[in-house]
């Protein structure tokens, strides 16, 4: 049976949630409950069987499940209380939580703090509205990954992939290894959306063509997919007339973006930042509803699980500080995406009583070389750093000493100059 009250309830046991729970315990918080909808912890990492996880968190080459397992073991040894197979259906600003499970039925809990580590979902064929038929054979890359890596089932034999997001690239290789023909990957932008190393080890290694400035403009098949129309696009991403060819395939995987899953937060009235589809948070990862925190891919989409986990740790630290010291009522300034910057997390920072360091995560709007990243408040430059190249698919992180924020009055602007 679950208790009626917990000091901290973490929703979602992916790496961010696990790391947050561990951090809460390490900060001496007594009752930390971790709720997970699946039967086991780990979240989406359990289907990410490729390596490349853990390099920054543990200095090791790990698979996704191994990476999740490491955090799980830490959480167990710290005495985190786990409940799996529990779906949270509602949270409220007063930090009550309604959840449903087979064991306990529908239960209402009260939490001192809530940390949302709810992950993200994939943009799908519905959202991108590709014209044509609606046959079987069209999947999000993650859905195909779940079928293949957890259920042991193949979704198709002749595969085309739309979108060069990392899951799509990983699945191109994965399907090829399992004997499927992978006919190509189309990316509507003139540059790839995936990490460069995935272009190498997932596409180039297996001679899978990457069609930049191309998109899928038609889906054919009454029952199962029989083919797609692949079209070249102009600089405005509009299909070029006459530059379309039919590709016969039985499978189309979509890797066209991830969106933080925030129906709980939306229904609770947590203010969102439309640029990230996640909550507006401060430097401690607290949302604008005091005592509710957010981290990981449920806050904004990371390109590495290591970073999502790290952010979980930071949110755990922030939530522990809130439980011990109460809300930071000091002055707040907005953090603003400036020149060439698509978004910045957090949305605002406090100027007093802040933690030792504050982290700014951001993405650039387009690939650039030899740039200078400038962080300033009004005319006062807080940090300035050079980088050889920046691309939208690689998130940038800048750490600022908490002290640097003291006394600031003007918005904090993050900008990138060529």
């Amino acid at each position: 049976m679950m208790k009626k009250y917990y000091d901290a309830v973490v929703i979602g046991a992916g790496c961010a949630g696990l790391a947050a729970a561990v951090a809460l315990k390490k900060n001496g918080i007594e009752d930390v409950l971790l709720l997970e909808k699946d039967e086991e912890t780990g979240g989406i990492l359990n289907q990410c069987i490729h390596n490349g996880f853990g390099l920054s968190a543990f200095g090791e080459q790990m698979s996704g499940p191994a990476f999740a397992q490491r955090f799980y073991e830490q959480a167990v040894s710290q005495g985190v209380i786990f409940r799996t197979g529990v779906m949270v259906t509602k949270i409220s600003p007063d930090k009550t939580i309604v959840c449903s499970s087979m064991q306990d039925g529908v239960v209402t809990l009260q939490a001192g703090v809530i940390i949302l580590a709810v992950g993200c979902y994939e943009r799908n064929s519905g959202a991108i509205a590709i014209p044509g038929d609606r046959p079987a054979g069209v999947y999000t890359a993650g859905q195909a990954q779940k079928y293949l890596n957890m259920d042991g089932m193949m979704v198709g034999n002749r595969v085309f992939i739309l979108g060069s997001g990392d899951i799509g690239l990983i699945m191109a290789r994965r399907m090829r290894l399992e004997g499927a023909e992978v006919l190509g990957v189309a990316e509507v932008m003139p540059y790839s959306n995936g990490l460069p190393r995935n272009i190498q080890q997932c596409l180039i290694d297996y001679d899978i063509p990457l069609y930049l400035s191309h998109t899928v403009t038609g889906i054919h098949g009454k029952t199962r997919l029989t083919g797609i129309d692949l079209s070249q696009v102009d600089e405005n991403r509009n299909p070029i007339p006459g530059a379309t060819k039919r590709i016969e395939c039985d499978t189309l995987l979509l890797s066209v973006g991830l969106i933080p899953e925030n129906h709980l937060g939306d229904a609770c009235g947590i203010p969102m930042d439309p640029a990230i589809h996640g909550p507006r948070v401060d430097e401690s990862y607290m949302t604008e509803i005091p005592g509710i925190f957010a981290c990981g891919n449920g806050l904004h989409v990371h390109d590495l699980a290591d970073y999502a986990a790290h952010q979980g740790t930071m949110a755990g630290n922030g939530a522990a500080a809130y439980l011990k010291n109460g809300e930071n009522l000091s002055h707040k300034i907005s953090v603003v995406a400036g020149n060439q910057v698509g978004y910045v997390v957090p949305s605002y920072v406090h100027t007093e009583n802040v933690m030792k360091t504050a982290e700014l995560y951001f993405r650039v709007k387009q690939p650039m070389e030899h740039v200078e990243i400038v962080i300033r408040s009004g005319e006062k430059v807080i940090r300035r750093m050079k980088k050889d190249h920046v691309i939208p698919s690689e998130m940038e992180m800048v750490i600022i000493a908490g002290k640097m924020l003291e006394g600031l009055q003007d918005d904090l602007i993050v900008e990138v100059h060529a």
Partner: protein
Amino acid sequence: MKKETKQLICVNCPKGCRITVTMEGEKAVEVTGYSCENGKNYAMQESVCPMRILTTTVKITQSTLRVLPVMSEKEIPLHVWKQAMEEVRKITVQAPVSIGQVIKEDLCGTGVRLIASRSMKKV
């Protein structure tokens, strides 16, 4: 001898360094653009025989899932992937399995072991 340059993207870590290797015949004579020793080694190796970690699954019985994620403990030559997958397809293991457990001693004659990349309980 004629010099040739190759542009590589390091796959060792997510940083994805763009490395340039200058080749003299089959030999790498100069490497630039790397940011760690691993990267340099990668580039030297990549220019003669690309090596990769293989990640896949094997069949597992008596567990909650039907397949167990596995990986080669070290890099194996990229070009053996088809034979390696043939071998992997023939393997069936029984739960319980613990992470790091050796699933196959010598993958495809490379001398590299195939290991479980997560633990799986018996049901």
